[in-house]
């Protein structure tokens, strides 16, 4: 019944958090609760194969999902996944509905106003793709054109010339689109691009593994030029429920997974190149 009326774990956490803040800024409330309930609630948008998707049996799969499971395992608790929309996750203010986002989020200055980024766990290149019939051959060719991307993504910020990544490799803004079409997720952009060059958009920007997946699925699209920029991808926790103990534990586990090559193995397992070779995206650029 408690579930139906929605007064469950999260409300208690919230109440405790308020109480604790009003007394002293005592650390570890959220982490203690995770251990006590034996459950880590992980948010990840399920619309991002091969990072996170639902398989035929209705089970979450993908790189992010396996990283999430591994984190819970090393914490010694159960992993539970919850799948809100991407912009709901990046907006922060989770109200303790979930504990951590394992969703390939790039730390940016604007996001860090509402979220903590305890640990970067891999790095992917972002690239532009166009229809195979497109006359555009260079990144500069997209200037003034209609470029599609995901709403509330780093790619959108890049197109707007307003990408404020933290601790990221240097990059330049090579494309200044005339129109930015922001859709719910990258696959909607790919679906529009496949209709033809310049039909609904002139090209789109997304992560290399996602574009690679679309090409393998038979989409008539091709990469345009070199990757536009490389982004670090991190776990995220809610700044409102600031819990240094949870953040420290997450950072410790990620460091451990890097050290024993678990992350590399997962990356090789999930990310393939065009020639079928595997890709280890866990190495910093």
């Amino acid at each position: 019944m408690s579930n139906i009326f929605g007064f469950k774990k999260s409300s208690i956490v919230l109440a405790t958090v308020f109480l604790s803040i009003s007394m002293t800024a005592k650390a570890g409330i959220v982490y203690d609760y995770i251990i006590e309930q034996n459950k880590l609630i992980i948010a990840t948008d399920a619309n991002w194969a091969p990072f996170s998707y639902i398989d035929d049996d209705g089970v979450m799969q993908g790189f992010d999902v396996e990283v999430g499971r591994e984190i819970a395992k090393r914490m010694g608790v159960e992993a539970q996944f919850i799948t809100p929309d991407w912009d709901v996750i990046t907006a922060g203010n989770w109200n303790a509905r979930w504990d951590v986002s394992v969703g390939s989020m790039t730390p940016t200055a604007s996001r860090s106003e509402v979220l903590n980024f305890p640990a970067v766990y891999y790095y992917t290149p972002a690239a532009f793709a166009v229809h195979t019939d497109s006359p555009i051959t260079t990144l500069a060719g997209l200037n003034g054109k209609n470029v599609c991307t995901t709403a509330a993504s780093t790619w959108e910020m890049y197109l707007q010339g307003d990408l404020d990544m933290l601790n990221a490799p240097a990059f330049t803004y090579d494309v200044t689109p005339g129109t930015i079409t922001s859709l719910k997720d990258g696959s909607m952009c790919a679906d529009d691009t496949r209709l033809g060059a310049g039909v609904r958009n002139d090209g789109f920007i997304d992560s290399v593994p996602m574009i690679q997946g679309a090409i393998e699925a038979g989409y008539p699209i091709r990469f345009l030029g070199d990757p536009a920029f490389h982004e670090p991808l991190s776990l995220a926790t809610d700044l409102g429920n600031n819990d240094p103990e949870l953040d420290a534990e997450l950072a410790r586990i990620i460091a451990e997974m890097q050290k024993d090559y678990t992350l590399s193995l997962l990356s090789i397992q999930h990310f393939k190149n065009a020639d079928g070779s595997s890709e280890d995206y866990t190495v910093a650029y």
Partner: protein
Amino acid sequence: MFVDTVIEDKALHKPVFLIYLSVTVLAIFFALNFTNTLFGEFLRPVIGDPTESGFFGRFAVSLVLTIIFVLNLFAISFFKLKAQVAIVWIELFLLFLAFAYSFDLKMSFIQSRVPLMISRGLFTTIYISAISIVIATVIAVIGAIAKLSNNGFAYAISSFYTSLFRGLPLLLQLFLIYKGLPQLGFMVDAVPAAITALSLCYGAYMTEIFRAGIQSIPKGQWEASRALGFKFNLILRKIILPQAIPIIIPPTGNQFIAMLKDSSLASVLGVWELMYLARTLGQRDFRHMEMLLTAAMIYWALTIVLEVIQARIEEKYKQKS
């Protein structure tokens, strides 16, 4: 509807009408240009390569389609009414199937995911809608009575409620409840938030339907009951509502059907209902059309079930009166 006793010749059996119809249909087909579709392929022996057939190809395709269309109508006009309805339904359904077929769907992909869409997606959709329908109906009855009462507070509260919740888009209400309530300290998860938003929104619409239904009963019924010494509650239960319900049922059935489909808005909050799975399950293999069409068929089937139930209930009340 009113049954007309003046019987005229069927329009389709008048040559002048047939000519006008043919010319109009030909013009429409010509304007839409079906040359580069499946129809053009069928006529390849006559017009050659459809892409290079030009004006002649376009005209030939339109002409053939027009002849098929008009002859079809003409043939159907000789059947009895029920047979006509059945034939037109089947023809339209076949056209829809052809439309779906043209997407080059992968049936094995659909088959492998249908069990999940039904066991998880359809189940969630139905239980969210069912709970919301019950709550909305309760709200509507209370709201309608409050709106009709002489009590200033009751009227003010219920009219404010209907005005507010009919005035905001459902998606906006959903976000206000999902994001807003926790800031006040009331924690609601995605499913309860969706049920609350659906119940409140549809409760507001149905309040107006119930109020109008009750008001449509002539004042004389109240006065006569009063004269017989009945109390308010008894009059409402035994005299007014039984007469109002047959009037209320058709629009209420509409609301149920609309709500069933609006429950898809819960997908925004990550609830694994039909719409969410339709959008998500095709992701890994980039096969979105398959899942969307499957969900479309499931929603449609559900709606048909509701339509049949509504028709049955209406029939029952018709017999009573």
